């Protein structure tokens, strides 16, 4: 049905050295060949790259060179879309890009709709549903870690794991079904303890996947990290130091930061969304009061708190109070003593006696900032995420995994209360249904096929 050939700019619009224009569809090679001077593309093998020029009005007296390009050739079915495709790498000038696409359209291609290349890949059986969704994530990914996760998912790791789980569960379900349909007949089935062990095994795979969503989400959306501290503790200076640019308004007057300022910081491929806050000072100033209110909201939403203090100014009791609050919120926090250069050794020792894990820095003098960055990534990484692990990043997948988990918990609970097989089966079927929503299928046929392949049933 994909009889037409589509083209589009595959790299982001804007400034860059090189742009890639992608063409896919049955007439791709013929169309590109018509506007390309170099080797005859129709005679070239798949997965080859050719240097040449894209020209307008080839063969006519007013033939003009548009650009020198590299053309990458992929023949069906070994391309991303499983169709003949070409990627034209040209210089990233708006004029050149527009001109090339215009010529392509004139020669018979049409402009692709958003996501149409991936849709074709999906429709042509290159990707399953989970993989297609991961591609969408991949396209949207803008950090290294996020990219890595998406790549893993595209390669099918996640789908495969789910498919394996589902198979184990179908085995489980078929034993129960067997018992239900042939309970009065001469059949054998496994006992409940085996079933419980099987579920435990499945849950052990399921739970990390579910937990990885939280982490996966961090990778995709960034770690919202809020910087908290008394006015003038140096929050904006720290933020600027981390970002190396003057984003926040910095002054020596306490309470200068009246708004929540957010920016992004990439450390080792992890995206931190740094949120500077107005201080936590009790205030009569209305505008600043709003700022304080927002600060509290930000703390609630944050995944990590950086608490910045000036040891020469802060009351130890006040800081204790603050720490207790952080603990109560359950959000990981980091205590950062600023203005290291101005604090006496005795003062430092006094604080270290009362608080664990203080990191001393000087935002202004750029002292120990690298340590702080290392500590930030360590905090994220110790939440049990290693690169290469399967990470769930798609909300839909996460929800189905969660539902599966819940259904299996119901099964376990049912086993505890010795409820009858038909109700266990209902929850198992729900679990199977939700796993099937991820990989794409569920039919009762699977159960029956399994029953008959494994068990003796007589009358």
């Amino acid at each position, binding site marked *: 049905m994909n009889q037409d050939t589509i083209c589009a700019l595959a790299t982001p619009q804007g400034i860059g050295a090189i742009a890639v224009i992608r063409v896919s569809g049955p007439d791709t090679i013929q169309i590109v060949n018509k506007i390309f001077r170099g080797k005859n593309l129709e005679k070239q093998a798949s997965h080859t790259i050719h240097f040449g020029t894209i020209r307008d009005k080839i063969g006519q007296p007013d033939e003009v060179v548009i650009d020198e390009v590299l053309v990458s050739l992929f023949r069906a079915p070994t391309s991303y879309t499983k169709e003949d495709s070409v990627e034209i790498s040209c210089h990233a000038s708006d004029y050149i890009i527009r001109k090339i696409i215009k010529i392509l359209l004139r020669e018979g291609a049409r402009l692709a709709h958003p996501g149409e290349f991936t849709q074709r890949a999906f429709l042509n*059986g290159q990707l399953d549903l989970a993989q297609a969704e991961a591609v969408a994530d991949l396209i949207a990914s803008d950090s290294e870690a996020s990219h890595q996760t998406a790549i893993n998912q595209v390669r099918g790791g996640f789908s495969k794991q789910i498919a394996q789980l589902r198979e184990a569960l179908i085995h489980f379900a078929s034993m129960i079904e067997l018992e239900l349909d042939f309970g009065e007949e001469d059949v054998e089935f496994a006992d409940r303890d085996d079933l419980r062990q099987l579920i435990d095994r499945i849950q052990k795979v399921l739970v990390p996947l579910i937990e990885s969503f939280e982490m996966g989400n961090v990778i995709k959306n960034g770690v919202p990290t809020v910087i908290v501290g008394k006015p003038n503790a140096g929050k904006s200076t720290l933020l600027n130091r981390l970002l190396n640019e003057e984003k926040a308004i910095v002054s020596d007057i306490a309470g200068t930061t009246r708004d929540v300022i957010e920016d992004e910081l990439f450390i080792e491929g992890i995206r931190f969304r740094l949120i500077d806050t107005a201080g936590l000072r009790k205030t009569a100033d209305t505008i600043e009061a709003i700022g304080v209110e927002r600060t509290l909201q930000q703390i609630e939403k944050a995944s990590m708190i950086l608490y910045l203090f000036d040891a020469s100014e802060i009351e130890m009791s006040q800081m204790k109070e603050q720490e207790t609050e952080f603990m109560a919120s359950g959000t990981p926090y980091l205590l950062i003593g600023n203005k290291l250069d101005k604090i006496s050794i005795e003062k430092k020792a006094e604080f270290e006696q009362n608080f664990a894990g203080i990191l001393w820095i000087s935002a202004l003098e750029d002292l120990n900032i690298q340590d702080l960055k290392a500590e930030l990534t360590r905090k994220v990484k110790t939440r049990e995420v290693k690169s290469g692990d399967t990470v769930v990043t798609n909300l839909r997948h996460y929800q189905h995994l969660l539902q599966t988990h819940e259904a299996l918990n119901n099964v376990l609970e049912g086993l505890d209360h010795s409820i009858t097989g038909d109700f266990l089966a209902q929850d198992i079927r729900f679990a199977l249904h939700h796993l099937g929503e991820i990989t794409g299928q569920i039919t009762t046929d699977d159960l029956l096929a399994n029953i008959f392949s494994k068990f003796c049933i007589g009358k």
Partner: protein
Amino acid sequence: MYKQYDVIVVGAGHAGCEAAHAAATMGSSVLLITMNMHTIAQMSCNPAMGGVAKGQIVREIDALGGMSGIISDKSMIQFRMLNRSKGPAMWSPRCQSDRMKFAEEWRYALEQNLNVDFWQEMVSELLVENNKVIGVKTQLGIEIKAKAVVLTNGTFLNGLIHIGEKNFGGGRTAEGKATGITEQLVRLGFEAGRMKTGTPPRVDGRSLDYSKMEEQKGDESPNKFSYLDTKPLSEQRSCWITYTNQAVHDELKTGFDKSPMFSGRIKGLGPRYCPSVEDKINRFADKDRHQIFVEPEGWNTVEVYVNGFSTSLPEDVQYNALRKIPGFENVKMFRPGYAIEYDYFPPTQLKSTLETKLVENLFFAGQINGTTGYEEAACQGLMAGINAHQKSENKADFTLNRSEAYIGVLIDDLINKGTEEPYRMFTSRAEYRTLLRQDNADIRLTQKGFEIGLASEERVKNVNTKIEQSKFLTEELKIKKVKPDEVNNILESLGTSTLREGTSLLNLLKRPNIGIEELKTLTPEVEELIRNYSTEILEQVEINVKYESYIEKEQLMVEKVSRLENLLIPESFDYSKLTTISIEGRQKLAKIKPATIGQASRISGVSASDVSVLMVYMGR
């Protein structure tokens, strides 16, 4: 001599009898043609009706106004509600039948219906004009016209019986085969296949030593199938259980070289779940024994059916092996077991009304569609009979969906997935098992049966009373509260936790250890409240209260999935354009022409990704 009929039914087994009865009751003039009037409603295999999933089907047939439930009630010699220890969706009525009485009651019921005429002969040909059936032609060359024809040929089409190395044509032992129809249908473009089934030897009950077997009695207070006022049994006959052993297996093995199954003489595929005894010991060599279920054939006969011993080995091997079974040492055999091969037509050639896609007004029901089992056959006959009537009167199709009835599951499976082996119903085939219970078939279906003119007004009145009274009682249980000091002693003795404050009877009923019977014991007042209701109402209320959350969960699922059922696919949709769907998927879709995305998703050979593709193209 022959008038023009509305509906001709060919074959008078479970499917044919239900078809004839349904169409005639709805007002069609019906001619029932059978090769032998003496074998109307023969139970060709074991003398029993119902069982797990099958019992639910009998209840559904009854709820719609069919006869199988009533006939079973009138002819049963034992009744058991199977799976009582499991949830209510698993409770499955089953009865042992008096084989002769069953046939007699069916014939009598049909004879009582003035719209049913009978004719004894073999139909050898269908009269087809412009891809439309207009009647049948018999072996004698008689042409009889009808607006619709229902074929229920069972195992008779080119039936071939095997016993050891011998084989002979026949539709049942001692009965001839039917020829002509398969050949004609194939010429018309139908695809035909071969299936196989088998049956065990029948023996002399006087020669058995029951003291060496386990007795299986009927239920103490037996129930019944029909929602009408048939009478439950007051006296019952027992079945007996014994087992094969290594000596039996060794004896059977001596005949393996003469087995038509192992030698490849039988081409048809048999049911995996009802294997012959030689198949069982061959495939499950590690099992040292298999169960044998000894079933009496009726009140007034000594003949006994040896369930679990289906075989097509030579008769002397059968005999020698039987004698090694405990209790069978002195057995006298009445008839040997045999295997039978017969023609069927892959049911993907049918519409959801069981009308064929190729020939208009022609309906198929029963084993001709690749199913096995009396109940499966009977419900198809019922649906084919109803739709043959509807078609001949230009009325709307009558179909049931998967969340309404096992009958809906069965037909949907058949027409979408087809079947490679004899299709038997299981509860696991139904995704909404909790909704499809034997206790609520009337609530699910009777109104529908009434609307098409099949279920009687009496049935509708009964079911409406049942619904109203259940509602009323549920309300009363909700309102009626008990106080801790009234009931705590009793609660404690029932092994359930005591109350700290007053609660409704409804809440107590939700507890695992408390059923309606236990509620009665709480206070005299409660006892009085409950006493006024029939067992049926009490059971209904108890199930709905106790299993509410499970029932609701499943209902939610129905609603969710029904969205796919509402995504219509235009009938003219050209699947050949969908090059992105696997070739197999495209072929299946083009052949079956599903009406909805939901139906498409259930077609075998159509993968989930094919369905996603379809949805993308349909603009979803």
